[in-house]
């Protein structure tokens, strides 16, 4: 299912605006200044369906600092803070 879209630059999901759609390229947990350890953060993201090739769409944003964001990940919706979403590289 993995799709690479060479015409679009890679960017962290944490910077995406509402309405953004893309495909997860890889996880880069070092990029996120999360309180969790790298392994723990990566495990949790995978458990919630953030794996390579998954289609994502930013559906909603919170009021304060446009944070957190509600992300459609294939067939489910996950709420996540931008801080952690920095670990998800999309294109």
């Amino acid at each position, binding site marked *: *299912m993995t799709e690479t879209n060479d015409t679009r630059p890679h960017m962290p999901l944490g910077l995406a605006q509402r309405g953004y759609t893309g495909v997860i390229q890889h996880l880069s947990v070092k990029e996120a*200044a*999360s*309180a*969790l350890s790298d*392994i*723990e*953060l*990566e*495990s*949790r*993201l*995978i*458990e*919630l*369906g953030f*794996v*390579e*090739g998954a289609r994502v769409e930013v*559906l*909603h*944003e*919170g*009021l*304060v*600092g*446009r*944070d*957190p964001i*509600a992300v*459609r990940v*294939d*067939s*489910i*919706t*996950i*709420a*996540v*803070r931008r*801080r*952690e979403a920095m670990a998800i590289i999309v294109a």
Partner: protein
Amino acid sequence: MELPLLHLALVGTPNSGKTSLFNALTGSRQKVANYPGVTVERKEGFFVTPQGRQVSVVDLPGTYSLRGRSPDEEITRDFVLGKASGETVPDLVLCVADSTNLRLTIRLLLELKRTGRPMVLVLNMFDIAARRGITVDVERLAKELGVPVVTSIAVRKGGTADLLTLTDEISARLAAEPQENTWRALSVGELRSTQREADRIIADCVSLPARPDTWTARIDAVVLHPVGGLIVLAAILFVMFQAVFAWAQPLMELLNSGFDALGEFVHATLPAGLLQSFLQNGVISGVGSVIVFLPQIIIIFLFILLLEDFGYMARAAFLMDRIMGGAGLHGRAFIPLLSSFACAIPGIMATRVIDNKRDRLTTILIAPLMTCSARIPVYTLIISAFIPAKDVWGFVNLQGLVMFGLYAAGIASALAVSFLIKFFMLRDYAPAPFMLELPDYKMPRLKSIVIGVTTRAKMFLHRAGTTIFSMMVLIWFLASFPQPPAGATEPAIDFSLAAIIGKALEPLLAPVGFNWQIAVALIPGMAAREVAVAALGTVYAIEGGKEAAEQIGQVLATKWSLATALSMLAWYIFAPQCASTLAVIRRETGSWRWMAVTFGYMLVLAYAASLLTYNIAVALGAG
């Protein structure tokens, strides 16, 4: 031959419909307790298969994996592995999946398979999946996964028939093929590869239309709008509190007049004396004045359960995350704090969903500041005695508005305390992540709401029948003995132990405008806050005789100044005295220190708030 009890365990991700399947299988044959040594709620139910096999089924806490990163998830893991102390290894594990959303459950199932337990995949909510155009090749899925797969519609009558039949078939050949447990915590790489494997199987067996739930999208467009969403949330909370105050009124009046009639009947039937006084003033007016609040407790739990079943609670957490984050709270704290409006005890227990220790401790410390239902009796009594029931701005009931204000004061002080904790105690603080699934909206089912509300109502009545009753007997005793000497002209209560204790405490409480009757009422309030109302009722009933017993509110209106009443309201925003909440804090934090801290800071706040309120009110001429 009588077959031994078959043990089933329900495992699944959060929101997979596990609990509705559990309710469908067992109906009302459920018992709720705690797992030994931990405070995770253990729900077990019983049913009989079509072939007459007795089955026990345990509803395990929802989890995305077996890593066990919170106490709830550890229970699920240990239970499946047969490591939970005092528990039988389940004969059969039912892995429950929401048919519209298989990705995460299939991955969990692939992990569960490694434990070697006999297993069945239950595709729940199969009707909703069919309606959305999702088709599942059930046979192929079973072959690919290597476990039996059965569909079910938990919320429909007969929707679990296939599951029951399959349970019979499987239990007949259990133990024939014992398997080995090869499970160990998965590495990141293994997690990723099981998710890939799950996605491959789903691609082979499930055809998904490219059409998400349009209803959920439409509702979320409004409910999760950055500004509109907060307005909706505020409106829901406002309606909830107006309902608690306004809708419950007729029922409460009905209950009230019922207890009055009962008291009258006792008064007329029994000869005057100790027994008559005990039954009328101690038992009926005391316990009755607490049971009267049952309608309000039912309404508040009705709202909370409806919002939870509908799928709104996760949205509320999403909306509140950054706002609460400003005060040092985690978005997930919203649900425990909202439950604390019913009672701090389930609220504090619900903090287990917060996996960061500091976030959890902060939430536990401020949960008792949320206005619990036990304060409602105190607020209602004082508000209806002192605040006129007129409309302001044409449509808002002033009494309801004051009630709303008291709730708002509780919330504001909780946020302030949390901010101070973050600022002074937990300085080197990196916010824990907020990751939460926002499930599709579902129509709440009458049956599960009824089961939920009745359980809570029973718990309240049980408390009224035990703790509150024994406290009332004690208060009546203190207020009635010793009896006044013959020929005394003052009211009988002036000679009692209650008056002696109350008058000893009076100098301490005089600066906040409390008289000795209030001092007496605050002591049994330790057992349960609402007892304070009943205690005031008993004290004034014995002091004033029959007329006083009929309307505590009217008596208060004549005996207290407005300043004293407002001071009492301010005291109860904080009201440190609730022994059961303190006991739960002790248990959940595992330390006496945090219990003492909670009691101490709430006592200081209560005293300060009352002192301030009383003196301002007196200065404004309300003394």
